């Protein structure tokens, strides 16, 4: 141990890449959660475009009934890679990135509990991204078995090579799993143990609650998928017979492993989006969140229930009748805590002084489409209906309404809302609104037609179809291209505003929350002095302060 003066400490703790305005730190092994958060976000949005290009190719193929654009094998690879990239390289990393940025700020911590683990988890993302993309270069091309990789399809290995698209796919998903577990351990520890003085559980913003609930799902769900994936990998590479029916294996067991994680995984995705809605509506309606405690607790109820619904993906997989009944009931049950949240948001907005800027528009649009997805979700939960539309475009339409309608919209809302905080600059409201209009129209044009198509019986995962389905498919494809265009104003806005937007004040939205009490962007340490929280969140229209020491959270930085 050495004796150092305070000035020297400042130098150690703010090494060269530390200054908030230095862009080089985004390309370094930084351990600052804010840098890591933005690294996650930028990386994931790069892959959002990649997955989007695959989607454009899919929709390009489907604009005519014949399979004329692509070879069928390439089409299979396209939907597999589209689903995989979108889930493992866009959805998870972008949500983890946002949570990384916000959670320590929102609970009044200087960083995550394990900063180096955090950085290591992030740097695995580009690694498995490259591995997954490399599968385009191996003989036989990428995996074609869909994002579920169900055996025996995934066990075929037609080229006979050891390094094939399917093996690379599993490797990528495995690394993604390790990275997610590392992240989950970090988040749970941070939220449980790093809260500022006075930040009790029931003073945490709902976003923190939802991240906590979501990360618990990662912890109990992912290992099951890992177990299944390890067994599948052995089947594929060394010739064991776990899932190979020809050798006495049980392919349905893989489906159980897969969905035991991958169904809860949709709650890993949607819960933080619920959190975003719960943060944004109060700010722009100028009212406290309706039923804060109930909304917070229902996140944990969703976590619990999410572990017992997975078989609803397997109603058509020869599941016994009693199992179908049980899982139909649990699936309908989980819509209760979800419905509670929807009511809470509507009640929050109700009679508020609405301010319809870009984040609020995205949040409102997201809420509307989420409700629609919820309706089709309840329909799918009912066994007789599901047997009818299983593996049709109805399902594809349903989950894209969740994922585009709610998750992408919610993510955009969050990016606009916290953009001033993250970059210290204001975005362009005009471009933002244009982006919203294009996205909202595109989403509905693209994904609504999938519902009538599914009801008429158009199967998913096909490159050609009966001409009777042509009309709705043309509409869907045009909507998809509109969605493709919608990313242009977004990219322009993000990059342009970051470079030359107006400087943002601490709290441009007059929002209530710890992150809005410090400068935009916050300093490396977030808080010079930890906030002492004295009130519940969302105190809109009330006079009590949020923290006891608002003026001492930061020192003047000009000195160094």
């Amino acid at each position, binding site marked *: 141990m050495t*004796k150092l003066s305070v000035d020297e*400490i400042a130098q150690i703790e703010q090494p060269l890449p530390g200054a908030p305005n230095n862009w080089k730190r985004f390309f370094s092994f930084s351990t600052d959660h804010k840098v890591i958060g933005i690294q996650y976000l930028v990386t994931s949005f790069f892959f959002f475009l990649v997955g989007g290009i695959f989607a454009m190719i899919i929709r390009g193929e489907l604009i005519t009934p014949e399979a004329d654009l692509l070879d069928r094998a390439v089409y299979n690879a396209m939907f597999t890679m589209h689903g995989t990239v979108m889930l493992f390289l866009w959805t998870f990393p972008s949500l983890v990135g946002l949570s990384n940025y916000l959670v320590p700020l929102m609970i009044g911590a200087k960083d995550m509990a394990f900063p180096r683990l955090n950085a290591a988890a992030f740097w695995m993302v580009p690694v498995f991204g490259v591995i997954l993309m490399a599968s385009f270069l191996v003989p036989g091309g990428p995996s074609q078995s869909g994002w579920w990789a169900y055996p025996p399809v995934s066990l075929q290995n037609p080229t006979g090579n050891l390094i094939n698209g399917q093996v690379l796919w599993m490797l990528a998903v495995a690394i993604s799993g390790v990275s997610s577990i590392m992240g989950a351990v970090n988040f749970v520890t941070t939220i449980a143990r790093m809260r500022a003085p006075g930040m009790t559980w029931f003073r945490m913003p709902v976003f923190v609650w939802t991240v906590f609930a979501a990360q618990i799902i990662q912890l109990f769900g992912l290992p*099951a998928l890992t*177990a299944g994936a390890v067994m599948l990998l052995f089947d594929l590479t060394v010739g064991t017979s776990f899932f190979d029916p020809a050798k*006495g294996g*049980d392919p349905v067991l893989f489906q159980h*492993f897969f969905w035991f994680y991958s169904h809860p995984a949709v709650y890993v995705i949607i819960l933080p989006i619920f959190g975003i809605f719960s943060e944004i509506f109060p700010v722009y309606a100028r009212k406290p969140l309706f039923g804060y405690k109930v909304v917070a607790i229902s996140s944990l109820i969703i976590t619990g229930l999410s572990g017992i619904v997975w078989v609803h993906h397997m109603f058509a997989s020869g599941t016994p009748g009693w199992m179908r009944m049980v899982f139909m009931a649990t699936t309908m049950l989980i819509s209760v805590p979800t419905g509670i949240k929807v009511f809470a948001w509507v009640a929050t907005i109700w009679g508020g002084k609405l301010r319809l800027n870009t984040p609020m528009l995205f949040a409102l649009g997201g809420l509307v489409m989420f409700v629609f997805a919820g309706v089709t979700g309840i329909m799918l939960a009912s066994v007789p209906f599901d047997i009818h539309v299983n593996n049709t475009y109805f399902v594809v339409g349903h989950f894209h309404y969740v994922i585009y309608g709610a998750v992408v919209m919610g993510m955009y809302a969050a990016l606009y809302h916290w953009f001033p905080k993250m970059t210290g600059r204001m975005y362009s409201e005009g471009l933002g609104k244009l982006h919203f209009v294009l996205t909202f129209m595109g989403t509905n044009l693209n994904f609504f037609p999938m519902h009538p198509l599914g009801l008429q019986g158009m199967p998913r995962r096909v490159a050609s179809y009966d001409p009777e389905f042509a009309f709705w498919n043309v509409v869907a494809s045009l909507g998809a291209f509109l969605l493709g265009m919608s990313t242009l104003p977004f990219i322009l806005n993000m990059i342009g505003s970051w470079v030359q937007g107006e400087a943002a004040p601490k709290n441009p939205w007059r929002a209530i929350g710890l992150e809005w009490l410090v400068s935009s962007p916050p300093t490396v340490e977030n808080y010079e002095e*930890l906030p002492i929280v004295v009130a519940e969140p969302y105190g809109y229209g009330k006079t009590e302060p949020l923290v006891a020491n608002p003026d001492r959270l930061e020192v003047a930085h000009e000195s160094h």
Partner: protein
Amino acid sequence: MNPIEVNPSLNAKVPTDHTTDLHPSTEHHHDEAGNSMFGFIVFLLSESVIFLSFFTGYIVYKTNALDWLPPGVTGLETREPAINTVVLVSSSFVIYIAERFLHVKQLWGFRLFWLLTMAMGSYFLYGQAVEWRSLSFGFTDGVFGGTFYLLTGFHGLHVLTGILLQAIMLVRSFIPGNYDRGEFGVAATSLFWHFVDVIWIILFVLIYLWQ
């Protein structure tokens, strides 16, 4: 400003109290060893789900498979594995004694019992290897062969990891003053060892006793 103490290496494992020193008004103790232990327990809970999944798979296969045992195999020998089990389970008590020694700062007692734990773990792995070599079926012989080697192998990998961790802790005990600021590494290794033991007991019951 007052000169204060910081750890120049900024080693995250060591609790650095400079934040509280700088601002005595915020009485918030930043307990990094406590965080690490908490995080490690969370990780172990998660890890146990992998074993749970394998166990579930095993039970499903055993109760449903048409041809469970490969042709020519009648069952597993239980005598040697039972001895192995006794050795592994008792090592959990030995490692506990080692920890107590460390707690009262008796380094040699700690090293002795720690080394004994490692020896018992290694004996277990050796016994496992001997058993594997004597078996007439392999990894690819049906779901029985598959799950048998998967479970014992995955568990063996954890035993090996435990022994490696123990070796690191043993070496670190020779660094002067290494355990003065807390024993997180030792406590975590020992917890991991108990975990590996409990898993083995379940595994032994499932594979060897329930035939």
